[in-house]
């Protein structure tokens, strides 16, 4: 048939779906370093928020402050501190890398090397911190 669909017969135009598909295979020195930077940045933000609130408690009631801080002295919180230090160390080193990439031409051409340096510095920092910290958490000094 040659009859043209009229305006009312025309199917309503569906929203064109955006393809989802596979996860983009980014590089650990590229895409994933940024994903981690954002995750650690947001995590540090929420930590600081809670930390400012609990520290502010001391002005309201020192007893309540002591009680809250006391609940932090558990092995679970000890492990949480490992995650916190890990996140801050990564965000700080990687943030310096991003600054170098932004302001220094050598940084954009050698960014892969810079990213591996960030990972190495992070590993060294954690190797220095984690054993000592966990010993003090689990032996109670």
């Amino acid at each position, binding site marked *: 048939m040659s009859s043209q669909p009229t305006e009312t017969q025309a199917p309503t135009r*569906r929203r*064109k*779906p*955006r*393809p*989802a*598909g*596979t*996860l*983009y*295979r*980014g*590089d650990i*020195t*590229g*895409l994933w*370093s*940024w994903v981690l930077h954002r995750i650690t940045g947001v995590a540090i933000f929420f930590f600081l928020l809670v930390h400012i609130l609990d520290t502010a408690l001391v002005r309201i009631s020192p007893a309540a402050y002591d009680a809250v801080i006391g609940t932090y002295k558990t092995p679970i919180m000890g492990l949480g501190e490992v995650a916190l230090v890990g996140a801050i160390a990564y965000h700080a080193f990687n943030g310096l890398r*991003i600054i170098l*990439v*932004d*302001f220094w*031409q050598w940084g*954009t*051409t050698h*960014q892969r090397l810079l990213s591996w340096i960030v990972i190495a510095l992070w590993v060294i920092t954690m190797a220095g911190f984690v054993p000592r910290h966990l010993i003090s958490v689990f032996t109670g000094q």
Partner: protein
Amino acid sequence: MSIAPAALPEAEAPILPFTVTLIIRRFDPEVDEEPHWQDFDVELYSTDRVLDALHKIKWEVDGSLTFRRSCAHGICGSDAMRINGRNRLACKTLIKDLDISKPIYVEAIKGLPLEKDLVVDMEPFFESFRAVQPFLIPKSAPTPGHEHTQSVAERAVFDDTTKCILCAACTSSCPVFWTDGQYFGPAAIVNAHRFIFDSRDDAAQVRLDILNDREGVWRCRTTFNCTDACPRGIKVTQAIAEVKQAIMNNSAKK
């Protein structure tokens, strides 16, 4: 010819094709609500490219498979697609460079509206390209009978960004562009860079002002996906960084 077979070197084994599985993300806007994956087994040689595999499927198995290609030699920029999770040109991706013990995943580039199978609507991409005024804007005409001259060193400053073929592999590899379609995207910035740093051009400031926008260069988070994706080997992230610096240096002077 009677002597020919004897003259052939004996060790020359016949080159045999092997079976490769492609898993292609299909979408037919007339019947499908959502895109879906479909498997194809094709006989290929190691010298074949992903584009040859798509041709084989389209010509011999399923003529409805839809994709864009024109030159088949990495020049026209038609066939950027996501191959095994990375943006590549199908015509420049050799089968022998892929791990064929596993299926090859092929899907449309991300962040642009999907039209059909591997075809996306490139209009938003070209809109950003046009917005940066990607053409020479000289203040004065050259002396009659001459052209605008340029030294080798002046030409070298923007040589890298002259190579762009507008395939959109970079822009559609950018996580910022995926979530914010308003972002100009790497390709538009690359093509702005090509004229901003051209000594014959006098409208650098116009383009820098356009890119000094909320949706301009400052959206870039230096993930380097674009640099990895560019089939022309353009240092895309570096070009963006140079534009950022040009904006900063200009406004510092004021």
